């Protein structure tokens, strides 16, 4: 159905300048992508709000669901800086979010989604000189939802401060971000292979190798909390 109108689920022409994936291969990866970049978030929007909205595109009865959310953080201050990654279990769910959620409001801001190559270590941090997103450094307008401080009510101020501190413990390096749980495995039912804690190594996480055996429930590393 693309003769009369364009489809809203097509990726933008954005090229991740840090990605080493070639353009031709990039299109291939995007055509199977289960991850969305979500931009223009308020700095104060929570993961649960994001979960609620993006969960509406989940198709659990086909093995889908919301795998994980990775909040974009200011590299220096460890505060949310207005973007996140939403990862589903299936590509169809990501497409549905492009069609139905991108361009609608969350927390009273119109958010923008794009198909993404998939989360890679370190991508949760802003790449701007200041630590936030590059796009915010080019922004000239005053935007109270994104760091502008108006005469906020006390309660509102407190909420915002609490939100800002939420990720002060965020870490980088391998395994700083949880995996979200993989496919069903028979071994897990019969006996818990990790009961001894011996399997607590980071799981193999190659995009092309997300198989029954490999994309396991293995913990992906360190928790970020204290």
């Amino acid at each position, binding site marked *: 159905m693309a003769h009369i109108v364009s489809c809203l689920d097509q990726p933008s022409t954005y090229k991740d300048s840090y990605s080493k994936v070639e353009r031709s291969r990039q299109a291939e990866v995007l055509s199977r992508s289960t991850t969305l970049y979500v931009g223009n978030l308020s700095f104060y929007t929570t993961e649960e709000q994001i979960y*609620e*909205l993006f969960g509406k595109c989940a198709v659990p009865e086909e093995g889908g669901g919301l795998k994980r959310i990775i909040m974009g953080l200011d590299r220096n201050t460890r505060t949310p800086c207005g973007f996140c990654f939403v990862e589903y279990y299936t590509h169809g769910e990501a497409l549905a979010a492009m069609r139905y959620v991108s361009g609608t409001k969350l927390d009273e801001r119109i958010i923008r989604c794009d198909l993404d190559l998939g989360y890679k270590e370190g991508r949760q941090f802003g790449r701007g000189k200041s630590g936030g997103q590059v796009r915010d450094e080019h922004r000239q307008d005053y935007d109270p939802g994104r760091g502008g401080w108006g005469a906020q009510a006390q309660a509102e101020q407190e909420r915002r401060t609490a939100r800002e501190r*939420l990720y002060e413990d965020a870490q980088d390096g391998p395994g700083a971000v949880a995996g979200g749980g993989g496919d069903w495995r*028979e071994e*897990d039912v019969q006996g818990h292979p990790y009961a001894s804690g011996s399997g607590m190594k980071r799981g193999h996480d190659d995009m092309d190798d997300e198989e*029954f055996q490999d994309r396991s429930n293995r913990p992906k590393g360190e928790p970020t909390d204290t």
Partner: protein
Amino acid sequence: MSRGNYDHDRRREAIPESGEQRLRSAIIKIGEDPEFHPTHELPRVAKYLRTNLPASAPAISEGFRIGVTEQPYKIPYYSSLLALLFAPEDPAPDAQDGPSTSSEHVARVVLDDFFKGFQAFLDRLAWRELRLCIHFFSHLVLLQTVSATSMLALLQSFAAVLDEPGVSFYRAQQAALCVGEGLIRAGSVLYDAHREEITELLASISSLSESYTTLKALTRPVTLYHDPAHASGSDELLDSLLAVLSELQAASFPLVSCIPRSHEHFPQTTTSPFDLPAVLVPPEVVEIDGEEAAAADPEKSSIKTDMPSSYLRLFHDESTPSLSTPAGFVLRSAFSDVIGIFEVNRKECARILLEMPRWVENGTFKGKTGVSPPEGADPPNEDANETGWILENTIVETLLSTLLLLPAPPHKPVYYFSLVTELCKASPQTVGPAVGKSFRKLYSLLGEGLDVEVARRFSEWFSSHMSNFGFNWVWREWIPDLSLASHHPKRAFIRRALEYETRLSYHDRVLKTLPPEFQAAEAEAIAAEAPGPLFEYDDPAHPLYEPAQSLLTLIRGRSKADEVVQHAETLRSTISDTPNLTPDSAVRSIAVQCLLHVGARSFSHFLNAIERYLALLRSLSNTADDKADILDAAGRFWIKNSQMVGIVFDKFMQYQIVEPGDVIAWAFRTATGHRLGTNEWDIVKVALDKSIGRVLLTKRKVALLRKEEEDVSARAKAQAAAEEDSQMDVEAEKKDDAVVSDSPALQTSLKALATLTREQRMTFSRALDEFVAVLTKSASPSIGVIGAEAWEGRADWNEEQWQFWEMWGWYRHFCRAYAVHLGTYAATLETVSLGETIGGDVGEAARLVRQTWNAALGREM
């Protein structure tokens, strides 16, 4: 839409259009000029097309095919345009052949090619495309370009589907729509010559419709449990189709008023009409275990349900056309097709919907100009724009009644939410009031029989809509309802709508949109505080404060998982029995709440906490009782936040700490008196869907591995054949057999599939058991809400009665939403779970349980 096509289209945009593309778009874009008039534009385009015939016949027929299936509202013009291709050309100076014969000939080539496309739609049973092509053919019958006899034969081929033994409801319904919508358009010509045949077609649709009476009762959006025949407030699609056809037949099939009479503008262009070739509707692909799942397109966005479609009525007949009238049926299905076709781009969809009056006769919609009358005809009535239906109400009603279809709409509900939003953005002054009226109408049906799932979807739409429009709602209007019983559907709606709003926003934001009456504690509309966690061991006075703190300290200090497991082990021996709690259960509760406490900051924090300490959770979750403890502890921790309960349970299942059956048991155990409310139902659904998803994924995997192995073995065979070319004997055959045996990977998957299938059966059995137990418990007030008299007295119902009424609703929804799966396990489930309802207890409740079950499984009485 594959990426390949997208890239292709993009390239196409970048380079100048080729000749063929120009031809295609000349066809596709007809009528878009604001000054469009068919008698001016169509002959011009026809002439242009003819200059490119026969050379470009394939491109031209493709243009028609795209136009007809993707812009069906232009079909009256597409058909006129095609008919014009048959018209004799103006004799050109250098014309060598007789002009008339050459036009005839090339036009036939185009129609032939178009029909090849139709055959392709038929081969893959693309029902919407088939139906729209039938619209096109029907208009060509009016133009006498297609022969009436061949059209009748085509409709009869589709009608044959209705008599197929064991035909699925979906297939029969789609075929009936093809027949019926063809008759609505071409009936005026067909009926003259073929009265008997047409009467037969109607009779076969009628008997199809009658054979689904019970299933229709189960899918009505407004329903009375005691009266399955109660059908007011909604229109079932087949019923409406029949009503329309009967009305038309009674008047010898007049043309339907809203459809543009483009054919009347042009003289007959051929004396030997085209005969549509005979077709046979191919059978549905039979589902063989696993293969269907493997073949399923994971990118498909529409869900087809095998249940009747009952559309809720939101407006009066003066405001929007009824589905059961000819014009109403035509308009509603036209809007409906646009909503389906443009699902890929909701913004364009909104624009096209608002422009629909352009494509119907003047006077159809109030205040909107439709098609201009033909030249020389009477000037339009000055008042034409003052009569007619209200466009925005019609759009919104079509959209919402589709969103609220049971058991599920064709697309994800969020598509319809977003489409309403786009419509409101495109024309706030006109769409806004239609949306507001719909909110009020739906609200007024709460407690008057509006189905529980419809009410749930309504609250989800309401909150999503509010989230997009500043949470502005006139809550004042509903203040009087705050004095209704707490579990009255209206109050339940208010609570749920505010809860969903809070999830999308935050507590303070929602609170400040409410009048004081709603904020008052006794209104029970919204909590006084944000729905935070409840860590039971936070209080130093708690008897288990010390052990909980010790574990919490280890977890916070990021101690190794095995150390934490060991510490939990030690705790067990140090904790003395507390009332109601064994040391084992106490340790499980402490461990779960400590992890959730550490992970309470956000979804990611939660994931990190449980991923790090999976070993701890697993060491504590060996038996079903253990798992129940874990769910109970988590449920208490997030008791104020049903969203978090859903998230936590979903991940607990994902990490296989608990099984779907455990979660279902929790939902019933936790609900007041085991009577499910909407939030508990949501949890049951999360568990059922998880179980279904697992089986599906494993089936796909098995099918994939099978195919791989077949490929490998085929290659091996080919190789062996090549090597032992001359001596292909019994020995070689034996060798082949060895190769064919299942690989370890396949064996593992097959074993997993067997386990998961067994588990799925148990999960469904568990849910059914729980429903039956609650609903048929002897002397339970369950019975007191299903009779006619009881219903009439609902103004005096107490909390328990409303809860039972809701519970019955969820049982109905459980049966219809999971009918396919329940059918798979019907034999076991009927023996195990429904056994008692068949034999001993023949009370009212048991009878209704059984009747609902039979209806969902398609067993008509």
